[in-house]
């Protein structure tokens, strides 16, 4: 199995200075946007994106062309790049920001051209200081060259980009929470309806919110074609994706591959296998995704195949857990994460995730009760009725239900690991 380098080609080939404008341009950077601004129309760009069938890389996998098509008419519209990347296991946007910021900027200019937008923001999580610096420097370079600002590339188009740092809140990755955060508010997700960003987004104006990887794909699509892009990968999961591989793996890292091969192949070839051990379980798509078992490594890495197994490809974060892993502690780590990151608006998420964390803590430290398995599952059920995936929700956003995924996985496939920690049933004869 080999990588297919579209987004990471330039950075791979120019490791010393792929972040600089000089290097980017030397390797064909900003050609796409020049072409589009010179001879393209917004409609054509939209059509290419639709043809590419690219689906959002932020986790939800929504078709990007369709999303752009929803953007409501208004004099004032915004583009917001979601660089909050905080889903445990995920570090793919980090490399794009850090090592190829101009590719993102070029993607943004084309996107803003297509959507008639003149003000854009890149929201980067606060912990990504270094990636943010690189993006900021790149933006300054672009302004100097006249690639940003007024009449860019000599056209009639104006575009300003502001980099905005988050401040330690995973929930701000959720697009409406992100918009609140960008408005200087608490990062609480908004109600949909009525706050669909494409209609009522930033400052209540129509707003496109797209992931870093999604928009970084735009220059390639425009310098080739939507059709070329859609010929890569498989139907429903076209193009390449950058997967972040971590956990008990010999060669962790970011790998850009076409979707369609199996997790097993991915782990064995690019990941160079797991150190002399078998895999007990793995997370196929970030901390929110239900686990798959070690005997499910032949599942194909496509959005639909993973969904058919009751999980999701999500943010493209693959975490391998070998047979020595204490899955109760693993689940506890995941649940603690969601409890810590709950914004606190919804009763079930605010109260339920912390309760789950407390129960798991008790169980893991040998203070569990016999009834705790039922209790854990029932509390999960009150956050995510039916415990199905994709989840039903009693909450505003999917964060709460995400907290149940690991517990449900644990109880479904690895219940004995919990049971040994609980007191034995005493039969009085």
């Amino acid at each position, binding site marked *: 199995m080999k990588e297919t380098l579209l987004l990471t080609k330039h*950075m791979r080939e120019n*490791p*010393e200075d792929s*972040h600089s404008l000089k290097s980017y341009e030397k390797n064909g950077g900003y050609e796409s946007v020049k072409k589009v601004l010179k001879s393209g129309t917004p409609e054509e760009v939209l059509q290419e994106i639709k043809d590419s069938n690219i689906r959002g890389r932020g986790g939800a996998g929504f078709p990007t062309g369709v999303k752009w098509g929803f953007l409501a008419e208004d004099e004032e519209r915004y583009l917001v790049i979601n660089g909050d*990347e*905080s889903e*445990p*296991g*995920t*570090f793919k946007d*980090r*490399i794009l920001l*850090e*090592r190829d910021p101009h590719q993102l900027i070029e993607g943004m200019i084309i996107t803003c051209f297509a959507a008639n937008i003149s*003000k854009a923001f890149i929201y980067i*999580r*606060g*912990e*990504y*200081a*270094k990636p*943010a*610096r690189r993006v*900021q420097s790149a933006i300054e370079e672009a302004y100097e060259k006249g690639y940003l600002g007024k009449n860019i590339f000599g056209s009639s188009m104006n575009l300003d980009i*502001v*980099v*905005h*740092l*988050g*401040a*330690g*809140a*995973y929930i701000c990755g959720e697009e409406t929470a992100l918009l609140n*955060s960008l*408005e*200087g*508010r*608490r990062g609480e997700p908004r109600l949909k309806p009525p706050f669909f960003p494409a209609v009522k987004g930033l*400052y209540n104006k129509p707003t496109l919110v797209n992931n870093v990887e999604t928009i970084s794909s735009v220059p390639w699509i425009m310098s080739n074609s939507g059709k070329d892009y859609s010929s890569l990968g498989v139907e429903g999961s076209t193009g390449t994706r950058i997967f*972040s*591989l*971590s*956990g*008990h793996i010999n060669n*962790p*890292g*970011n790998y850009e591959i076409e979707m369609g091969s199996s997790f097993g192949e991915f782990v064995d070839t690019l990941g160079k296998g797991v150190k002399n051990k078998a895999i007990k379980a793995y997370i196929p798509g970030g*901390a929110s995704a239900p686990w798959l078992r070690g005997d499910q490594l032949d599942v194909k890495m496509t959005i639909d195949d993973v969904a058919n197994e009751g999980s999701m490809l999500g943010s493209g*974060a693959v*975490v391998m*857990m070998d047979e020595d892993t204490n899955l109760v*502690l*693993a689940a506890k*780590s*995941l649940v*603690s*994460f969601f409890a*810590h*990151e709950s*914004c606190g608006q919804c009763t079930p998420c605010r109260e339920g995730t912390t309760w789950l964390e407390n129960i798991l803590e008790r169980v893991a430290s040998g203070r569990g009760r016999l009834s705790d398995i039922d209790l854990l599952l029932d509390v999960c059920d009150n956050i995510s009725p039916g415990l199905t995936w994709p989840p039903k929700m009693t909450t505003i956003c999917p964060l709460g239900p995400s907290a149940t995924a690991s517990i449900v996985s644990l109880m479904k496939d690895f219940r004995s690991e919990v049971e040994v920690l609980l007191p034995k049933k005493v039969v009085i004869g």
Partner: protein
Amino acid sequence: MSWETERLEKAKQIIEMYPQKRSALGPLLYLAQDKDGYISNESIVEISGLIGITEVQVQSVASFYSMYKQEPTGKFLLSVCKSISCEISNSSDVINSVKNFTGLSNNETDDENFFTYESVECIGACGGAPAIQVNYETVEGLTPDKAVDLCKWLKEEEPEIVVADELQDKFGGVKSFDWAIADNNGATSPVPGFQTYDTSKEKK
């Protein structure tokens, strides 16, 4: 006690960047923390005046985000990751070694105001687990011993600027990905080193 002219000038510049004043709230909070080490009530009053919302509204936002510190923070903020990939790569050992060395428990600052220790959720360094951040500069592929070496070095050198590349060379191990490009920029306080907020400096 209100902000000095220099900081006010910076604040005004930042406010200018946004279509609506309130959007500058996050950056202004960083500006506050950069100088004071935390979000003081005086700064809250100042910011409230600058963007025209009430003090408690500023506080409400500030206290929502974990990177805005509500109590004075040391010169070096040590944030050890405990999320899933680090957790299963024995981050708890790193946590213990840092705690032992500094004598601090979670979210504590030492008497000299030198170290603040915290265990944090995923910092996007999962491929290089376990990982730590010093003033939001990342070090990947840490071992418990290297973590102690790192702390000792900070104690001895007291660097004015913390640079990820330098720390990674000295104390790091396996990385999430090849960092490639050489970088001399870093943080000068327990807030992210980012040039727009003037919290990033280049180490010569």
